């Protein structure tokens, strides 16, 4: 039994020694946590080309090949990047913090985009931060192509989403409202809107429609009309949400409702009265 123990111990020691030797001789097989980027495959067996023991990946190791003034302009072989990839924008020269590993990592495969960590915008100069399109593409959708304001009006530097702005909270783009932004938001001003850009709406028609119902404060259309659904606006009106948004008390709300009902009743009586008069006139004429 003792001999067995000695033999087992011997085998274990041999195995562990092989592990140590293997880690030293073949680090890419024994230690590497994943494939390197395509551009780094030539040095995949040379850990110390990028790493320094217990010190990570110092800046100098990266800049030995990727010279800071050339990043984004020339490849490490000296080929102009503009010719190779015209969409790339050089901004590394404007970095205020020089630490490659803050954004880049490796050993995760051949997909370059997976090696980019969350970018901290505070690492670049303010002039670059405020000029988003110097690095980012402006979205080519109908909403963004019309906007000339700063991206930061809706977006922040932590992430594109969630954007601060959600149009559905203000007005739903239903079937009747599939239109250009500028139909409602004139002069590229997204802080205000008008519903009179559509031929079906005119100030005089709106005034008539609302005053008939006893509504005199109707200029802020989307306050009640959150979509093209007429039933919805009635529900919304009855729910009293409009008044709560406007800071009215329930008492004021009730008064407004009462006023509205009285006005509707008066209108109904007037109409009935007019119909009766008309009926009497007809009868007189027939006699």
């Amino acid at each position, binding site marked *: 039994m003792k001999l067995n123990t000695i033999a087992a111990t011997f085998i274990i020691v041999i*195995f*562990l020694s092989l*592990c*140590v030797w293997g880690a030293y001789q073949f680090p890419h097989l024994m*230690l590497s946590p994943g494939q390197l980027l395509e551009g780094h495959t030539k040095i995949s067996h040379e850990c110390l080309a990028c790493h320094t*023991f*217990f010190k*990570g990946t110092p800046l100098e190791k990266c800049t030995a090949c990727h010279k800071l003034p050339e990043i984004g302009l020339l490849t490490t072989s000296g080929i102009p990047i503009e010719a190779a990839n015209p969409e790339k924008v050089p901004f590394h020269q404007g970095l205020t913090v020089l630490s490659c590993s803050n954004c880049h990592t490796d*050993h995760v495969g051949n997909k370059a985009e997976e090696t980019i960590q969350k970018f901290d915008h505070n690492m670049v100069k303010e002039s670059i931060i405020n000029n988003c399109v110097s690095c980012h593409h402006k979205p080519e959708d109908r909403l963004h192509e019309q906007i000339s304001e700063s991206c930061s009006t809706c977006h922040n530097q932590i992430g594109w989403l969630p954007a601060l702005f959600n149009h559905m909270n203000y007005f739903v783009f239903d079937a009747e409202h599939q239109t250009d932004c500028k139909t409602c938001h004139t002069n590229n001003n997204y802080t205000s809107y008008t519903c009179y850009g559509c031929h079906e709406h005119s100030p005089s028609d709106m005034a008539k429609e609302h005053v008939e119902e006893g509504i005199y404060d109707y200029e802020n259309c989307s306050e009640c009309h959150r979509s093209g659904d007429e039933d919805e606006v009635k529900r919304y009106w009855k729910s009293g949400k409009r008044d709560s948004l406007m800071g009215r008390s329930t008492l004021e709300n009730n008064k407004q409702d009462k006023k509205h009902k009285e006005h509707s009743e008066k209108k109904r009586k007037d109409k009935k009265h007019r119909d009766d008069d008309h009926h009497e006139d007809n009868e007189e004429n027939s006699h």
Partner: protein
Amino acid sequence: MKKSLFREEVFSSILLFGVLLVATILVDLLLHTIKLVWIGRYLGYAGTFLIIASFAYSLRKRKIIQWGSPKLFLIFHEYASWIGSLMVMVHAGIHFNAFLPWFATSACLVVVASGLTGKFLLRKAQAFVSLKRAAFLEQGTSDALIEEKIFWDAVALDVMGKWRTPHIQITLVFCFLAALHILTIFMLWK
């Protein structure tokens, strides 16, 4: 008796080992689903700490620690090493990139399997021999005759008792590989 032994001990042993594997997959899947994979990295630290802490039982057994109930230390050893192994397994994930971490992970699994073998089979064997001895005593059998009757059982138990040696050897292999993995991580950090 054989059926009962399998159901109560062998099956329990396999079940606990299976639960470890299934739990590893589920936790890893959960972390991937809720996009908290980074937690896996830190589970490596927590798992290692728990496994190291579980060695307190060995210290108690060898009287280096002289306080506390050995039974409680054993229970802590069993739970801490199982949970620690789960954390290490989740830390390893299902990604195969290099041999050394997987040698360490494999050694971890072997240690758990070995530990579960000891926990169930050895305990059952000890109980079986004690029960047999008690039955003979109850029948009024003399001590010499009892020793003779349970000789082969005692031999088997003695052989099983030797299980501790390979268990400790495998544990040392795991510790060495894990330490080498940790050392190389810190050497080539980032």
